[in-house]
């Protein structure tokens, strides 16, 4: 069992309130996952000013700031901040360059997210405490997703926390389990895709990223292909630097509720996580249909 909550803003005027809205969403899903929590934020200009990119990592060396700065131009303005188990590196270069440098200087660290418009944090602990560690109430931006985990298949550690962020700014949170992920992993490895963990959700995230980067799919068609290829139970919330998507398996055992309002779209495992959103009484509220993919673009 895990808790998922995400919001995609359609109205610019709500951008300063993203964090405070998400801060209260945690209360509605913490009961579903009390052992760890992860977060992806899109468009937070305080954490990631324009022209800057981010790399989030676990097990970073202590001198990571110096190591990265030495490899980048002087005006790259490298900064490093710790959020729970996550080391957040920011610099005034494109994310691909920053990620490449991080990989080079810290080969033993695990990259858990890269983006030009997005930041990712993961950590172990009660999500009610982690939301303060992540300074969630101060966050701004046009989109965010939070996951609370109750580990069932692997250890309680930051690596196992969601979101699984692969590729540039693509984040996936998953409630459920895939049964044929090992086969798909082998097929993707044959195509040159590399994996960081043994986790089934990572396979799905890499599959989406592979379809979008190599096969020309958009988020919607990549998720439809995922539905055709993957077997198992899932409610997925996938976010990119321009979209927000929800998909469920054909049996839809894992809970999901969506509320669509002219000013925002929100999805959560339980209604309680979104009941406080402004204008909820006017929103179109529905449970996503089994086997169907829903996408919204920024």
């Amino acid at each position, binding site marked *: 069992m895990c808790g998922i909550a995400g919001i995609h803003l359609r109205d610019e005027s709500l951008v300063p309130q993203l964090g405070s809205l998400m801060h209260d969403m945690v209360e*509605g899903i913490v009961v579903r996952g009390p052992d760890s929590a992860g977060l992806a934020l899109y468009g937070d200009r305080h954490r990631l000013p324009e022209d800057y990119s981010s790399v989030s990592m676990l097990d970073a060396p202590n001198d990571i700031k110096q190591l990265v700065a030495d490899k980048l131009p002087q005006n790259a303005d490298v900064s490093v901040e710790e959020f729970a188990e996550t080391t957040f590196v920011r610099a005034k270069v494109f994310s691909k360059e920053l990620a490449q440098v991080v990989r080079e200087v810290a080969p033993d660290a695990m990259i858990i997210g890269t983006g030009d418009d997005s930041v990712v944090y993961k950590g172990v602990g009660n999500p009610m405490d982690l939301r303060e560690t992540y300074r969630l109430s101060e966050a701004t931006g046009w989109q965010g997703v939070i996951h609370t985990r109750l580990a069932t298949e692997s250890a309680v550690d930051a690596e196992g926390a969601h979101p699984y962020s692969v590729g540039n700014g693509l984040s996936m949170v998953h409630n459920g389990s895939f049964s044929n992920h090992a086969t798909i992993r082998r097929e993707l490895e044959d195509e040159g895709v590399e994996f960081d963990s043994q986790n089934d959700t990572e396979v799905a995230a890499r599959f989406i990223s592979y379809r979008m980067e190599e096969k020309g799919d958009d988020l919607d068609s990549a998720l439809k292909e995922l539905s055709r290829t993957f077997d198992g139970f899932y409610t997925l919330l996938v976010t990119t630097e321009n979209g927000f998507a929800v998909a469920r398996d054909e*049996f*839809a055992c894992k809970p999901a509720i969506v509320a669509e309002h002219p000013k925002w779209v929100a999805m959560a495992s*339980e*209604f*309680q996580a979104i009941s406080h959103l402004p204008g909820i009484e006017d929103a179109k*509220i*529905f*449970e996503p249909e*089994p086997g169907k993919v829903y996408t919204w673009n920024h």
Partner: protein
Amino acid sequence: MESLTDTTVNIDLNEKTVRDLNAALHAPTAKSYHVTNPQGVHSVAVGIKDEIDVEVDGDVGYFCGGMHQKGNLTVSGMAGPGVGENMMSGKIHIKGHASQSAAATAHGGLLVVDGNASTRCGISLKGGDIVVKGNIGGLSAFMAQAGRMVICGDAGEALGDSIFEARLYVRGTVASLGADCIAKEMRDEHREELVQLLKDAGMEDEANDDDYVNSFTRYGSARTLYHFNSGE
């Protein structure tokens, strides 16, 4: 029952736990209870076994009103999965939407949902009645054995898959029928049954409107699955 007072007891779930609430409802002292600030907690008002009225002001989580035996339970808000699961008799009224598996395995009583109900509504229904004023999701009435379901809106995919003897009345469209579920003739006895169910759900105007009543289609079992033909 004589000892129950006419007063209304207020229980604020910001101050009391669900366990406190359910313990109070299992040994009632008053005829009426008013519950505030449920905020989506699970197992609200399960197993009520006396003729009392319980009103819940707000949204409830999983299994609200499960094993309901007697009395009236009203929720002015949304209900999570499994509302009224295995209810035996009495009435549960959800004024918002209900999530999946509403009234699953209900043996008796009436569940009324003013909004929509999600997937697996009335799954394995064993004799209870369900009236949904909106739509219901896919896989509803799966293996429903007895009882009645009235759907004033549309039904999702695979309605009544492997259904036994439950009777389904749907006013809107059905996305698809499950195995062995077919449309059936509406005879007078069915029309009367439907009218009574609408009245029980507080839809007096609709129940008295012949055009409204005649716009329903009855669905039930083709009885080809569970009688197992001998093969001759």
